[in-house]
């Protein structure tokens, strides 16, 4: 793979390059994981609630 367009970052003694963001798979995975956790938090524990629903359904059906 050509590296012609790979930048050479140059942090001299100057104000930090505040436009920079972290890249790479690890950073992206962490970002996506954080979004997924936000999603789960917003929707609550659907999986746990489903289990409770099934138990209550089974109990109601058992009572006839």
């Amino acid at each position, binding site marked *: 793979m050509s590296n012609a367009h790979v930048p*050479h970052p140059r942090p001299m003694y100057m104000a930090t390059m505040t436009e920079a963001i972290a890249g790479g798979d690890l950073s992206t995975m962490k970002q996506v994981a954080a979004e997924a956790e936000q999603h789960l938090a917003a929707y609550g524990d659907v999986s746990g609630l489903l289990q409770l629903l099934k138990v209550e359904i089974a109990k109601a059906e058992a009572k006839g």
Partner: protein
Amino acid sequence: MDQPLPSPDLSARSPDQPASVPARYCYDDDFRKLVPVLVVWETTLACNLKCQHCGSRAGRPRPDELSTDEALDLVDRLAALGTREISLIGGEAYLRKDWVEIIRRCRSHGIRTAVQTGARNLTDRRLDDAVEAGLQAIGISIDGLPDLHDRVRGVPGSYDQAISALRRAKERGLAVSVNTQIGPETPDHLPELMDRIIEAGATHWQIQFTVAMGNAVDNPDLLLQPHRLLDVMPLLARLYREGLDRGLLMVVGNNVGYYGPYEHIWRGLGDDRMHWSGCAAGQIGIGIEADGTLKGCPSLATSLYAAGNIREMSVEDIWRHADRMQFGRLRSVDELWGYCRTCYYADICRAGCTWTSESLLGKRGNNPYCHYRVLDLARHGLRERVVKIKDAPNEAFAIGEFALIQEPIPGADSPGLPERDPATVHRHAYERSPEGGVVPPSLTLCRGCNQYIWPHETGCPHCGADVAAAAAQHEIDSARRRALIRETQRLLDEARAAKQSAAKQSVAPLPG
């Protein structure tokens, strides 16, 4: 000053460079075409702090600082040469009455403009004026928790003023960052300092080692001993990772060296194709002293690197032709000495930061502030420390001299370094462009040990891995990670779209 402006060559910027890429990321064509992408400008030597490590011994303004007209003309000429980013420093840049005019002129050319400051008496009025003129970013120097910072900066209360300025700049929409110099007392402060600057709103944190120049030569106790990289670098790596999770991106300065176990993590901020590729002074960067003296880097010793003054020559001529500006384009591995001369990375690293090595040892080409070197020495039971042997003159950017002492690590078995033949060091085939620029080489990352290697290697000289086989396995792992990222993003996108659709339906008017 009456020469016509050269035409800007905008073709140097990579055609696929998105707008979000930092202005100072430099590409091969920037080197080939000699574009001074970065400019660091000491607009005045006047300063209201009394920093014990100040390399320029700032305090009083220089007697012959540029006039407003000269300064604004200089901005125009840098823009014409293709400059993309200017950092205004000092002294304290805002002690110049026309600093806002300089910012406004920089922004009129579309140049990214930032100020690096100690922030003493950086009032709301000054901040408002700078923001109104178009200032985009501010870097605030904080060297530790209050007691240490105030002592090093020489003014009680300066820490509180710095943190206050950070918050107030953030409130005004500026990009805010912190620069921290590492001396022997600093490492213990770093974890709590990181908490505090995150809380105050910083998003970026530049780390660099205090350099033996100017006031720091008078106060050598402020210099970190090179062997302490053994414990400081793992600490920095831990804070880098913690910072990522907390919205703070650590940017290691160019004297935090080089090619050790963390190079692939932080130099490219996660993009491991990027790595240290040598001092760029005079290749893509210019430093300006307040009287119009140009150097390849703002921090280099004036006595050795003053390449010319814009009152006597055009900026373009100094940039393209002055000997002292060109040194970085002409140097070779042959000028290296000491450990660096026989190092595996000699012909790309070039002994790291020229400012750091030359200020310390009086001659560039050998740099003990290198993690790869410190680890190599430690494996052989050795370490290095520095001792001052010569004071620095009482001038801005003056250097003294330190002795470099290699000694056994106390209590360790010290077999000593094996003999290494300088003739066996790999030499890269550098090519000079018609403009006189040279492109730094690119290394490959061994996926077996995450150490950089020259591209011709088939077996890793560090870990012995089959380089191609390790790369192939890495590709498989990488493809799996990217597929996982894509699938998770797809599900999240669908969930977001469903939520938006439900929200629209809930506010739609009832039919009939």
